[in-house]
């Protein structure tokens, strides 16, 4: 390759590792703010009390994810998964998901659906962010494959991704993430 080609590759690396990642972080935060606004509107329409546990927990979790969004990445998630998988049975993530489920069960069916949908969409945004900023997934073309799927069959691909996120093992990682975000934000 000519020196100009190497310089181009060098600049491409800077574009990917800094500029593109910063853009994806801003995009994640923007989308999370939109979700937080949706939750606020739900309470503003008196469908949910501002003092309700479900509102407080979900808002804190979204806030924590916004605040520490810069720490979300494929390698970060993998190392967090490895570091926290052997925690005791009183794992805060289990307590978090249990408390959140309990809090949601106190709501009427329609509000419950709306709140759990916001929670699920937050997980989708995190998954999307991790997939599209990972160098490992990018070079192995996994990202390209998922991007193509999302472009061609968006709804089907999203539904599939949602099912994948609902799997117990994946859900456990997401709960650990939620629980940490909620703890940090409160």
């Amino acid at each position, binding site marked *: *390759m*000519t*020196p*100009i080609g*190497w*310089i*181009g*590759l*060098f*600049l491409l*690396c*800077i*574009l990917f*590792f800094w*500029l593109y990642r*910063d*853009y994806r*972080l*801003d995009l994640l*935060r923007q989308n999370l703010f939109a979700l*937080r606004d949706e939750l*606020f509107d739900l*309470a*503003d329409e008196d469908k949910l009390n*501002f*003092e309700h*546990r479900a509102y407080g927990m979900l*808002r*804190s979790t*979204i*806030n924590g994810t*916004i*605040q*520490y*969004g*810069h*720490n979300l*990445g494929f*390698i*970060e998630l993998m*190392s*967090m998964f*490895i*570091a*926290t998988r052997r*925690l*005791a049975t*009183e*794992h*805060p*993530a289990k*307590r978090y998901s249990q408390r959140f489920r309990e809090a949601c069960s106190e709501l009427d069916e329609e509000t419950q659906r709306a709140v759990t949908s916001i929670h699920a969409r937050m997980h989708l945004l995190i998954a999307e962010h991790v997939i599209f900023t990972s*160098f490992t997934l990018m070079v192995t073309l996994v990202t390209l494959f998922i991007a193509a799927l999302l472009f061609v069959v968006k709804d089907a691909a999203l539904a599939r991704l949602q099912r994948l996120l609902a799997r117990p093992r994946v859900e456990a990682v997401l709960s*650990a993430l939620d*629980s*940490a975000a909620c*703890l*940090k*934000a*409160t």
Partner: protein
Amino acid sequence: MAAKKPTRAELEAEVRLLKRQKNAGAIATVLINLIRWSGLTLIAYFAYLTVASLSGETTTADIGIKLFADVRLSEVFAYLFGGGGVIYGARQRSLRRNTIERLQGRIKKLEKERDPGRTSSGLTQRGATHPKDQ
């Protein structure tokens, strides 16, 4: 309904989770920086090698001429297009952050009226990561 008060064991587990997550984050940061910087160093090294292969045979001026003689006009347009895109993106970003800074105070004030216990995301007024969270 009031939340059940966490037990001592639960609080200790929460502290453990946060500590482990912090350690995992530190390890991940080292790994990511290693990948980033070793990649960039490797590319810079190969670029140096291609230039160094010309030295001894030619002068620095010749190397410069050879480098740029290889660049076609169509390539110049491509680089200008790429560079222009980056500058355009940076300007748009700064514009968006200015808008966030302008609007966020009003949103915060209005939302506080409805929800006095409103919690914050902890970002700066321009919507960037707070330096203490870096």
